[in-house]
């Protein structure tokens, strides 16, 4: 049995039932890393929130999301709270806002342990400090005592990473975890994520709009477009035999080394015109 099974997931918003996710199917096996690629508004984040049971109140989800055999869609809040942080955790996009400004970073990371293991603050603190060291933060003792505003963006994002990984979840959902970081810090955070995931054997759903980043971390990839999965396969398959024109466009824009100097750079529109998309929708 797969760790996560998503069947015909549909999410709509508001009274007019505007669909943001339109029938998505995929599964993730234990320890597998699945990347989800797509542009803004393609339904990546909504899919991630749906499988955490964290959709806003005005959203309606149908279909089935099974995590470790537990149905998520329509599950009561209490049951979801038990799974969140324990079976599945999440890394957020924006490190500047994902940490509570009034709480010391160490206590914030320890929250997960307190909630799921009833950990005492003493031993929990030791684990927090070693986890902070594990995600590559130098001087973890000082950082554990700092408030979020005293840390840089890269430091905060690694704290968020530590928070998501400290309770060794089976699945880590990463929602564009490096988008808000500059390229050097991004590489470092990705490397640490890779190390910690390998060490704990956790599965990962990695959302991004950057093909290069996904191919660095993931085994398999989904390509989402307008709320649907248009392509699914291994990273290698994606680069060699993509079937959907949109995917071929994405791959072409990612492989700039194939463009000769003086030649115009390829865009996704060369392969998949927006007019065609509009026509398709109507």
């Amino acid at each position, binding site marked *: 049995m797969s760790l996560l099974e998503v069947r015909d997931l549909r999410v709509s918003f508001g009274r007019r039932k505007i669909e943001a996710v339109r029938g998505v199917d995929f599964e993730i096996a234990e320890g597998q890393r699945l990347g989800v690629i797509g542009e803004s508004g393609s339904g990546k984040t909504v899919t991630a929130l749906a499988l955490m049971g964290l959709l806003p109140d005005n959203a309606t989800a149908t279909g089935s999301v099974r995590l470790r055999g537990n149905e998520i869609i329509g599950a009561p809040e209490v049951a979801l709270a038990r799974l969140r942080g324990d079976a599945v955790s999440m890394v957020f996009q924006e490190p500047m806002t994902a940490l*509570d400004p009034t709480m010391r970073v160490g206590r914030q990371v320890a*929250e*997960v342990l307190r909630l799921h293991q009833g950990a005492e603050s003493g031993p929990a603190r030791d684990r927090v400090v070693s986890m902070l060291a594990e995600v590559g933060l130098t001087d973890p003792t000082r950082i554990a005592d700092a408030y979020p*505003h005293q840390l840089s963006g890269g430091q905060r994002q690694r704290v968020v990473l530590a*928070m998501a990984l400290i309770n060794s979840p089976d699945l880590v959902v990463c929602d564009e975890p490096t988008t808000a970081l500059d390229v050097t810090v991004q590489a470092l955070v990705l490397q640490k994520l890779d190390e910690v995931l390998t060490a704990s054997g956790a599965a990962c759903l990695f959302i991004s709009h950057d093909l290069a980043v996904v191919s660095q971390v993931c085994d398999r990839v989904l390509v989402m477009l307008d709320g649907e999965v248009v392509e699914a396969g291994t990273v290698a398959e994606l680069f060699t035999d993509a079937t959907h024109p949109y995917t071929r466009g994405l791959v072409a824009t990612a492989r700039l080394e194939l463009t000769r100097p003086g030649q115009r750079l390829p865009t996704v529109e060369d392969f998949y015109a927006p007019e065609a998309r509009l026509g398709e929708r109507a």
Partner: protein
Amino acid sequence: MKRAQLVTGLVLVSAVVITAIVAVFWTPFDPVRVVAGQRLLPPGWPHVLGTDGFGIDIASRLMVGARTILLVGIISVGVAAVVGVPLGMLAGQAGGWVDEVVMRVSDVVYAFPALLLAMLLAAIYGGSTATAMIAIGVATIPAFARVARAGTLQVMASDFVLAAKASGTSRWGVARRHVLPNIAPLIGVQASVGFAMAILAEAALSYLGLATPRPNPTWGNMLRDAQNFLFVAPLQALWPGLAIALAVLGFNLLGDGLRDYLDPRLREVP
């Protein structure tokens, strides 16, 4: 500039507090005993601020008045915060019909002036410090509920609440560990401003004879007594008026200063 505000506020407020505490144990003269031979003395020695129409030392009465005003402020703000803040947080977190009901009821109370409520209570139970405290407290509940609700809505929309939920924090846990600490500065400011309002309301009520009855001194009823001798001894009206103005100013400045100080985002990196 901000620092000067906080310091001025602190100085004024601590002056009131210290005076009130001292007045519990010692006043230069008996604040209620009538001395017929010393009526309307001008400021001098030993009556620093002079005496009133009953020959009672004004400074002593002012000191005891500070005690009353602090008591009224603490109790009424306490009542308002203890009832208003949880209501506001509930409204903000639950949303939907709960929010509607709480906020509409609070609008109704808000529309009802504190003075009117106090008159009602005074008419039923007789004017006393207790009725004034309760009336002012009840009338200030909506202000606290609104501030708490607005703050809660803002906090609930933030990523760190989503992150906390993603770690398995319950609704109650979110309210206690994330919402409350984040809205605490707002509540502190509101409490300080509410304190200033309570002082004004108490002064108005006892001026009208609806709060603390004579002979117990409050700044409000001192102002009323002084009115009778306004042309004979105009300074008599100045002292309680000045006390009210400075106390209100002090709590307002303290509130503003506290907001900046309590917010860890604005605190400087050590």
